[in-house]
């Protein structure tokens, strides 16, 4: 059996293995661990209420598995913050955390600042746009970390239907993964192809891992995590959990193009850092896309800068905070 096959056999789980939340709570208490749930948000008033309600009810009020639920918001102009607060989440504006370091736009910024703001030994990140929310989205990811000391980073994978207005399509999703990320991993990091959905926005990670890796603030944050954790800790630090079905918003092709561009830039930077390509190559920040407007082709140019936050452990403010 190859290393990847062994990993697939031993480090791939199904959420139902961890459905006995009471036992998870007992084991967590025995290990004296704390768990924080972070939901990065930007204008998510439609779905945030039920995510908070479902997680608080099942994982705090019924069983005390989670110690805090927080949303880190990028400046929503709808009622995301009010709704989340009304149902019992701690709410933070990303710009108010480490304000002297400025504000960068992107989900990765919120994830990075969560490490500073939240207290848990384990942080679970869950996207705010899940339509069929269920407690398994959290206990399925936390379970492997509680029962397996050697596992450090647990990624979700799904059968992911896309939801369009009024109808549910039976299958799909993960287009950027299959067209871009897995082919790249196949070429340069073959072991990582065993991670079914490297771009999924749901994962649970030990603090000591999160504080040791840099965070691109844009589209590339998940890809960079996978490569960096693999480089630092190896394949066996990963696990993945089948969370079955996830219904989410469909993304248009142009947005997927931007996402792919951001991921490619982050990937390229990792390749240079690891000496897999020449350092001479300089990449543009511009993504070019086309659209047809009234019988004319129009060229669109977008600046996609993949800024990066350093490992949290390198910040004196963080060192001071955790030593308190």
């Amino acid at each position: 059996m190859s290393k990847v096959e062994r990993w697939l056999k031993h480090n791939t789980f199904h959420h139902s293995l961890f459905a006995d939340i009471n036992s998870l709570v007992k084991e967590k208490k025995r290990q004296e661990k704390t768990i924080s749930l972070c939901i990065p948000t930007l204008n998510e008033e439609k779905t945030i209420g039920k995510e908070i309600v479902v997680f608080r009810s099942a994982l705090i009020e019924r069983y005390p598995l989670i110690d805090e639920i927080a949303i880190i918001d990028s400046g929503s102009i709808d009622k995301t913050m009010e709704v989340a607060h009304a149902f019992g989440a701690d709410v933070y504006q990303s710009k108010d955390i480490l304000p002297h370091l400025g504000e960068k736009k992107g989900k990765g910024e919120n994830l990075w600042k969560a490490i500073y703001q939240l207290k848990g030994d384990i942080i679970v990140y869950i996207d705010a746009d899940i339509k069929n929310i269920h407690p398994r989205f959290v206990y399925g990811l936390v379970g492997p970390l509680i029962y397996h000391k050697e596992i450090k980073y647990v990624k979700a994978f799904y059968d992911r239907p896309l939801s369009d207005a009024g109808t549910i399509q039976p299958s799909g999703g993960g287009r950027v993964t299959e067209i871009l990320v897995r082919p790249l991993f196949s070429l340069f990091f073959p072991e990582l192809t065993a991670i079914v959905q490297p771009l999924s926005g749901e994962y649970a990670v030990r603090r000591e891992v999160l504080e040791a890796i840099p965070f691109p603030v844009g589209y590339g944050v998940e890809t960079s995590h996978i490569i960096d954790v693999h480089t630092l800790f190896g394949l066996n630090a990963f696990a993945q959990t089948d969370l079955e079905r996830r219904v989410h918003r469909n993304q248009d092709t142009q947005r997927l193009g931007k996402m792919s561009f951001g991921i490619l830039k982050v990937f390229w930077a990792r390749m240079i850092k690891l000496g897999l390509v020449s350092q001479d190559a300089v990449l543009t920040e511009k993504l070019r896309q086309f659209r047809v407007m009234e019988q004319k082709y129009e060229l669109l140019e977008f600046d996609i800068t993949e800024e990066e936050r350093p490992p949290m452990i390198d910040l004196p403010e963080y060192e001071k905070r955790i030593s308190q």
Partner: protein
Amino acid sequence: MDKIFKQAKKHEKRIREYRNIVLADLVMIGEIPAPTFSERYKKELVSERFTASNVDDCVSDEMGNVFGLIKGEEEAKTVLLIAHLDTVFPQKIDHTVSIRQNMVTGVGLADNSLGVTVLTTLPLILERLSLKFRTNILLMASSHSLGRGNLEGIQYFLKNPFMPIDYAICVEGHRLGRLSYSSIGMLQGEIRYSLPEEYDWTKFGAESAIVNINDVINKILEIPQPKRPRSTIVLNAIESGAAFSIVPTQATLQLEVRSESATMVQSLERKIRNVCVEVAASSGGEVKFYEIARRAPGGISFLHPLVHVAQATMDALEIPSRLSPSTSELAACIAHQIPAITIGMTFAKKYNEVNEQVMIEPLSQGIAQLITIISAIDEGYCDDE
């Protein structure tokens, strides 16, 4: 009984603390489509939620009903709480539930994911309120209830009960203050009009199925609907035609006859069947009437202590009550001589529309009302008529 009513307000206040627990189950239950005869996935989830609420026993039967049992300390009596699993909405409709500050939006929430949710969360709420009863509480999420289901789930259980039932309370999401203790006679039927393949379109007066089903409708509307006993014919749905250039040869009309008298239901049914024969003869098409569901009228007396207790509970909680008949599971219970009522849990806007909204705030009143009625049954206040 005053002591129980005084507790009602306290319960209401405390139940508010468990709002998230109720809403969380509502989200999960409401997001699973369950059109009649396709309730399997919802049934599985309800079974999981009963178990998560620490019921003493959780079982399913061959019909797809799922039960949770809260054992009473003496097990002398059993009160059955029923909510139907199925909804009128098909699988393909987006069942996403959304929670805002004061309301929950989704499909089929008030009828009746909320009723089911109250059952799945009740064991935990009773535990948190430290309430224990001498009476057994049997929670039943019933299958195959609506339309063509024709109350199959509850009928099956009542014919094959695994424990005797003394009282039944049907729990509906909408509307708080509703009190049903009688069932009206009801017949649901479908009229199918079809033109034969060999139909002669050159014949004088040849018309499409739409025109002919319209003829059926006009003749049904001419049928007198008596005020005593109160009776009515409701036209519910019509379906025919496909596109331009295609002459429709099929048409379907769904209708419902309701009356306080079983004889009047039969009389109106006869007249509707005659209309079918008449239109078939005059149009050259085939007109058939199919019975979908039927209920016999009946009920417990307005003076029955269960009705009195329910009304007094609503008064104690300052819920304006509204008496109305029902055609749901109540009818089946009453037909089996089980004293039964139907009550609602909150208020809904856009009831039975795809963007239905149920109000969060009144829910604690609705659940307190249910617990208070159970307490009164447990204390024996409903025992003697």
